[in-house]
């Protein structure tokens, strides 16, 4: 069974030898290779393809291009299912599965269409007016609205397809492969420029693919197209991209092109990505994006079977499909005459032409008359009938001013209507380029005016609608673009063009009906968002004057089609109501992407493991083998804790924390940022970037430093050692390493270029094992014989160079736990060997590897801060009770003056204190807010928050650090921490909990 009852014998370019099977809403159909889903459905007589967004009205296929507002399809199934795909852009393939959207339970009987009967209660702004109060209910409303409205369903699983990105530079990038774009490519290509021509369709030719009434250079226009494409394909510097939409035009001629590589194939080859996002830098851009026909706004203009005139012509000429058996034209210009003749030529029944123009004198009018087609000049369609497809219309005479329909209504039976309201240039990309538009009265649309970037517009997108003009502008633009790249533009003689002459247009923005607007039928302006002319009038009456407000209030142009068919009609109607002209009303902003784009294409391969680099230490393999749990610290993966069989996290961390103070703990400290700083002015430089004094630090000694931003806020901290008079090794926080290096470079290059200092990141060059605890000196002594490890020879805060386990090492005697501690730095390649040697030798000392969680507990027991945990960019050294590290003597350091600002010296600033919960086993959640006075419900005055909180096995209770307003004056006070479901009480103490005398660092 062919079933393609509307296929026209002998017409169109589809491949009749290649029949393809597909399903729509579960029913099986057949089409041909070369069809779109839309043309194949129409060939089978299927016009009803969806329900509208708000009123759930039956909707058909309106266009043959990417401007389609109605025919939005759910394509494919499973995780590949994709919503809101335009049927007019889906190339038919064998086995294609498509479903209509926004209907329940079925397309033909849809519950939601009750909205249509309730339309008086769904005026513009309906959602705003009805659902915004009370505000607390909005969440419920939104859920209900989204379920009822529903634009298809997103798949729930992960996208199984692969996407790629490609970067490139071209001399001339051309958007659109219609006559203007092809002409531009020919001119630029012949000049020798590197050209990329992208077209969103499967074939080049643009509007010429749908027309048969033009010739170029003595041959049918389409033959000329094929010749040009062949010539371009033979040029080595020319790239032709089909199925490639120029989606965005950004600064400095940065252009994105989304190429659909395999979407049209049933079985895609494994090597090909589904889509490819081109990111191109074009020296010159030629915009040849064409134009989009706009519908007329008449009563019930949305029934299935009503489509654009150019679409009807495309279906019959390109796809060999009759839009109906009796097609009526409705127009305000000559375009529909071309369509009528095209239909007639293919033997499709023509019910006549209804033309709002009272007098039509043109070659086309003569040809139509010769063909025996009835023209109802000075008439308008005032009503349409047909529940799931248009079946007849009423036509009435218009008064001279076009404002009213008069006389007797005449009924005309038809099963399709081809509508033309004029053409709107596709200025989207020009506007995205920041170019300024101007209103052209001649074509009643916006056209490019003031250029901002290196681009040229040619052809219909530039307001030139005749084929001859398109070709001429294309040649000129292509030649000029090549010349701007230093190529000599070729001489191309004007081509002989034969095409129908197009006469004047009569704009009638709202076609009158039998009754005043809004009282009989709906005049749709925006089909996708169900916005009517009456809605625009209502918005204007309610005081909306700005076009941006009108857009948001009525939702005109806010669908996935971005109002490609509706914008000009909406603006013109708005202008009429306000008594302004369209330029006075202005236009809304065009934003990328030009058509909806797959997010996967923007992600490309940067997903999963490739989303972000992962940094791991030289000892990573050992941690994994030991069963460590990991945590992300910036891009680093750090061992978090090492659970033994059956241990909870808390049990493991407690064990690690106790071992570090009882025997030996070992931590992989590799991730700390390390910056090698050299130069005669290195000490002076550090003296300026740290708050404390550095000039007199002796070589071989280490010092803890705090770095401030110029506003006095703590930005980083760490220990820096002086290796030699002009050589320092700085450590930073793990997360802050990159930022600190940037910071140092910025000051050196921009503020103090006179300082002779060089900074290099050496984070990756060193592996660091930090051992601590009472037995760690004995352990180290077993592996290191060339360093005297005694307190006298190797005091706290100093550094020695020697060998550990036979590996050359820098050993730092510094401590982040408060215990006797050595940090052993070895070249990265020896990191794992060092670690294994320490573990083996440490066995008899009960060595215990500990992770970052235990490290946090150990340092909190001692009250050591972590930048980024105790600080958040609003915390000064004084807030941390660390005034001891801020030099009073130094004339200057970064942040010094800011520490004197009134807000910084205020007494009631938040200060770092300790908190001891009343219940010693209660651990306060970090980040919890602290109040002084508990009220039955929020709001309550918050006086601070908990920055660090742990269970401390060494203290035998929970400990917490907190920033509390006036905290130092609150010692001994009990504060309240309200949480959902419970309240914790805690007493304010000093922010130190263990070894208050600091006796353990020397072992």
């Amino acid at each position, binding site marked *: 069974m062919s079933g393609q009852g509307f296929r026209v014998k002998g017409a169109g370019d589809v491949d009749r030898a290649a029949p393809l099977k597909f399903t729509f809403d579960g029913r099986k159909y057949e089409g041909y290779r070369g069809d779109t889903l839309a043309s194949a459905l129409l060939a089978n007589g299927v016009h009803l393809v969806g329900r509208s967004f708000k009123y759930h009205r039956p909707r058909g296929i309106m266009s043959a291009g990417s401007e389609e507002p109605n025919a939005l399809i759910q394509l494919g199934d499973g995780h590949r299912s994709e919503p809101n795909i335009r049927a007019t852009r889906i190339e038919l393939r064998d086995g294609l599965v498509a479903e209509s959207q926004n209907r329940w339970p079925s397309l033909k009987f849809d519950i939601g269409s009750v909205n249509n009967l309730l339309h008086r209660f769904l005026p513009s702004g309906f959602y705003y007016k009805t659902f915004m109060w009370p505000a607390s209910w909005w969440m419920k409303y939104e859920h209900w609205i989204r379920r009822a409205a529903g634009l298809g369903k997103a798949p729930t699983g992960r996208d199984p397809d692969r996407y790629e990105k490609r970067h490139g530079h071209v001399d001339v990038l051309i958007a659109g492969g219609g006559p203007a774009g092809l002409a531009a490519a020919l001119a630029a290509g012949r000049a020798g420029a590197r050209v990329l021509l992208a077209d969103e369709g499967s074939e080049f030719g643009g509007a010429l693919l749908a027309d048969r009434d033009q010739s170029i250079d003595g041959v049918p226009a389409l033959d000329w197209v094929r010749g040009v494409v062949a010539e371009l394909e033979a040029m080595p510097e020319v790239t032709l991209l089909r199925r490639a939409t120029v989606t965005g035009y950004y600064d*400095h*001629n940065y252009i994105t092109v989304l190429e659909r590589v395999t979407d049209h194939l049933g079985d895609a080859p494994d090597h090909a990505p589904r889509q490819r996002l081109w990111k191109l*830098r074009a020296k010159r851009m030629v915009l040849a994006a064409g134009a989009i026909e706009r519908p007329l706004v008449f009563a019930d203009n949305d029934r299935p079977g009503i489509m654009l005139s150019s679409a009807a012509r495309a279906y019959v000429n390109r796809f060999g499909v009759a839009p109906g058996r009796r097609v009526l034209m409705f127009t305000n210009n000559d375009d529909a005459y071309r369509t009528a003749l095209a239909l007639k030529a293919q033997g499709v029944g023509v019910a006549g032409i209804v033309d709002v123009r009272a007098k039509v004198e043109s070659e086309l009018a003569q040809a139509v008359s010769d063909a025996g087609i009835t023209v109802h000049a000075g008439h308008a369609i005032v009503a349409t009938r047909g529940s799931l497809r248009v079946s007849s219309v009423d036509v009435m005479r218009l008064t001279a001013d076009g404002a009213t329909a008069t006389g007797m209504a005449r009924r005309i039976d038809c099963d399709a209507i081809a509508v033309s309201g004029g053409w709107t240039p596709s200025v989207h990309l020009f506007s995205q380029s920041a170019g300024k538009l101007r209103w052209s009265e001649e074509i009643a649309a916006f056209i490019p005016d003031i250029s901002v970037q290196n681009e040229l517009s040619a052809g219909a997108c530039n307001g030139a609608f005749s084929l001859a003009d398109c070709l001429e502008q294309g040649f000129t633009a292509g030649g000029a673009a090549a010349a701007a790249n230093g190529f000599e533009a070729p001489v191309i003689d004007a081509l002989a063009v034969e095409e129908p002459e197009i006469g004047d247009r009569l704009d009638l923005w709202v076609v009158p009906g039998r009754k005043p607007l809004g009282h009989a039928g709906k005049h749709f302006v925006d089909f996708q968002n169900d916005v009517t002319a009456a809605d625009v009038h209502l918005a204007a009456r309610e005081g909306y004057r700005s076009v941006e407000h009108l857009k948001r209030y009525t939702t005109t142009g806010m669908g996935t089609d971005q109002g490609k068919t509706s914008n000009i009609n909406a603006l013109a109607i708005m202008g009429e109501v306000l008594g302004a002209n369209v330029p006075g009303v202005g236009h809304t902003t065009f934003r990328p992407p030009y058509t909806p784009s797959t997010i996967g294409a923007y992600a490309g391969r940067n997903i999963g493991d490739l989303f972000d680099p992962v940094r791991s230490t030289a000892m990573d393999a050992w941690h994994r083998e030991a069963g460590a749990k990991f945590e992300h610290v910036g891009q680093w993966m750090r061992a978090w804790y090492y659970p033994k069989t059956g241990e909870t996290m808390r049990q493991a961390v407690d064990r690690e924390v106790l071992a570090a103070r009882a025997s030996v703990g070992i931590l992989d400290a590799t991730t700390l940022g390390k910056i090698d700083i050299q130069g005669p002015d290195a000490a002076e430089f550090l003296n300026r970037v740290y708050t404390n004094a550095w000039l007199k630090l002796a070589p071989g000694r280490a010092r803890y430093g705090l770095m401030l931003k110029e*506003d006095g806020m703590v930005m980083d901290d760490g220990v820096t050692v002086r290796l030699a008079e002009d050589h320092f090794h700085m450590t930073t926080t793990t997360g802050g390493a990159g930022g600190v290096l*940037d910071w140092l*470079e910025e000051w050196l290059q921009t503020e103090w270029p006179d300082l002779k200092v060089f900074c290099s990141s050496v984070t990756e060059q060193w592996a660091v094992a930090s051992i601590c605890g009472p037995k760690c000196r004995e352990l180290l002594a077993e592996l290191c014989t060339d360093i005297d490890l005694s307190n006298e020879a190797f005091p706290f805060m100093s550094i020695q160079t020697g060998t550990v386990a036979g590996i050359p090492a820098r050993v730092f005697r510094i401590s982040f736990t408060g215990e006797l501690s050595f940090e052993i730095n070895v070249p990265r390649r020896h990191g794992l060997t060092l670690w294994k040697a320490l573990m083996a030798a440490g066995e008899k000392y009960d060595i215990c590897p500990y992770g970052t969680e235990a490290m946090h507990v150990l340092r909190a027991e001692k009250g050591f801060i972590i930048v980024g945990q105790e600080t958040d960019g609003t915390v000064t050294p004084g807030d941390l009770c660390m005034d001891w590290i801020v030099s009073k003597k130094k004339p200057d350091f970064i942040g*010094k*003056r*800011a520490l004197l*600002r009134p807000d910084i010296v205020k007494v009631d600033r938040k200060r770092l204190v300790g908190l001891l919960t009343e219940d010693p086993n209660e651990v306060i959640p970090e980040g919890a807010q602290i109040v002084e006075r508990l009220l039955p419900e929020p709001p309550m005055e918050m006086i601070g928050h908990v920055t660090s909180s742990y269970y401390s096995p060494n203290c035998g209770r929970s400990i917490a650090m907190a920033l509390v307003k006036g905290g130092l004056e609150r010692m001994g006070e009990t504060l309240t921490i309200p949480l959902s479901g419970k309240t914790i009480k805690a007493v304010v103490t000093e922010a130190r909990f263990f070894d208050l005398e600091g006796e353990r660092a020397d072992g």
Partner: protein
Amino acid sequence: MLLIDCPWCGPRDDAEFHYGGEAHILRPRDAAALSDEEFAEYLFMQQNPKGPHLERWSHAHGCRRWFNMLRNTATNEILEIYPMGEKPRSEAGKAAYEANWRRGSAAEANALSGESS
């Protein structure tokens, strides 16, 4: 997406660069001598013009060098790129430099004090 002509590396995508705010904000030499308001001029206040703007950039993911740039904030046109420590040479750059309220401010005078020029 700007195309920025790094003085050391040539034209590169703006993703490689780091924006460093307004250029030619001199750091006070004797900040203690400034009132809180005067110091705040240096610390907090930045120009936000619609039009030519003198600003600092660094080629953070390239040569890591800082440089100055004159950029029209309305069109993103890059009008001039010149070395750190120097002043703009283009007419538009000189005009933008002179039009800045910071010229002659107490914080700037403090920063310039002791300089020979």
